[in-house]
């Protein structure tokens, strides 16, 4: 397996407070990797560092063997990394169609964009029904499907998902989990999934890292972690 992403020993600060102190993770091609941990453990900061939304203080991020540090957020999409941000961040006043087309913003191959759009609409039939509807009028779950579709419109090699289950009705969380599994199966894409819903994240990923206050506390095969007592105690319902 070749590594598509490796994050090496990064440190990241907000003002003078550290969010990450020496975190290393890697993602192999075709793999789904989960980052779990409590609120404020630094999960989202890792994604922000990868996408260039936040500069890292030290350490480096390699994507397909090349450095990503200092690459702008808009350039990173062109290199094949798409992010579904926390809180969905749909374009509220745009139609589903325009939201999806924004996902293909960096692409110029018109005919192939049509093809990708068709694939996304087939994957999420709900979006076809709501194609001309304004995004803000849809439910949280539908919007989540839409922003995942929007990210796929860029035909990414690496898909970053930040808390896709946050604020979604429990029944729809399952749908989203299934969609992530299906995407990983059908597309040539590696997935880095950040989730507070550790049970869901561990059940659909190959490997996982558990973060605690800015560093990796545990890592390993997701199945093993699911049965790990420490994980059970800390992340799967027990008290910390």
């Amino acid at each position, binding site marked *: 397996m070749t590594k598509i992403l490796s994050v090496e020993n990064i440190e990241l600060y907000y003002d003078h407070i550290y969010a990450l102190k020496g975190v290393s993770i890697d993602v192999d091609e075709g793999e789904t990797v989960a980052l779990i941990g409590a609120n404020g453990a630094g999960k989202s900061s890792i994604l922000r560092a990868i996408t260039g939304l936040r500069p890292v203080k030290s350490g480096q991020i390699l994507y397909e063997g090349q450095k990503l540090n200092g690459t702008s957020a*808009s350039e990173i*999409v062109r290199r094949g990394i798409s*992010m579904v*941000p926390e809180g969905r961040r*749909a*374009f*509220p*006043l745009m139609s589903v169609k325009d939201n999806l087309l*924004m996902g293909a*913003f960096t692409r110029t191959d018109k005919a192939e964009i049509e093809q990708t759009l068709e694939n996304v609409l087939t994957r999420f039939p709900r979006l076809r029904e709501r194609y001309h509807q304004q995004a803000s009028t849809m439910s949280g779950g539908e919007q989540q499907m839409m922003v995942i579709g929007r990210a796929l419109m860029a035909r990414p090699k690496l898909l970053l998902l930040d808390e896709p289950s946050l604020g979604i009705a429990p029944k729809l969380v399952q749908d989203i989990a299934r969609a992530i599994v299906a995407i990983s199966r059908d597309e040539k894409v590696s997935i880095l999934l950040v989730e507070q819903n550790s049970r869901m994240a561990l059940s659909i990923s190959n490997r996982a890292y558990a973060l605690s206050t800015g560093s990796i506390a545990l890592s390993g095969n997701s199945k093993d972690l699911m049965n790990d007592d420490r994980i059970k105690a800390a992340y799967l319902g027990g008290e910390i």
Partner: protein
Amino acid sequence: MEQIIANGLYLGAQYALIALGLTLIFSLMNVLNFAHGQMYVFGGFVTYTVVVQLGLPFIVGLFASAIVLAIMGAAIEKFLFAPVVRRSKRDESTMLLAAGVAFFLDAVILLFFGEKQRGVPKIVNGVFNWDMRIIMPYDRILIGVLAILLIVVFIAFMNYSKTGRAMRALAQDKMAAQLMGVNVARYSMIGFALGAMLAGLVGGLLVTITGVNLGMGGPTSIKAFLMIMIGGAGVISGAIAGGFILGMMESVGLTVLSAYGDITYLVIFATLMIFLAVRPQGLMGKPWG
């Protein structure tokens, strides 16, 4: 009655075009461009220079205004607003900068074009007369139609072009737009250039009817702000609604209230104060905060 509506529509189309430029800049960059009126005046003088002094056709003058103002807008954004937005966390900074740009442009206009009122000769002659119910010179009709056409083109551009879509995305969620690959710096500049271009175009249109002079900049900015406050700042439909509403109010006021002296704007301001007390976000806007 028909006359009042026709006048209102004519005025409203110009106003809506000015308000669209202002609201575009506001929605993309959160900048209140106090220099918008000056940009409009500048556009008028560019058309005047090209048509009267160089003797070229009106349409060339109009294009020249659009191009000069677009370049000016891009430069002002890139070298003045962008650095301030990047360094300052406070909205007041860009407001002060915008006010400074307004004074600066006033000075530039004085320097290049002088303090005299300037106009260009009528581009078409004759008066349209519908049974004495609507009387309107053909040149006003032409300018009104051109303005409406430009509004339609602008809306189509914002809705159906890739650039327009990117600007809407940027206005609605900057971070998400970045994640889609939209280069914020570049599209802020394009938006500012486009907003300034619209102001310049209206200046170029109106110089054929009312002429322009140095003193018009400030009052025009204030009118433009009135419009986007009526309609709701940062919303395209709001700018258009605000423009036409102000145009209508002015038209009605000038006809109905003229017997009581020049009190149209007094009444408009008083009405607006009451309206904003009830609905501070304007007609189409979202509540701020």
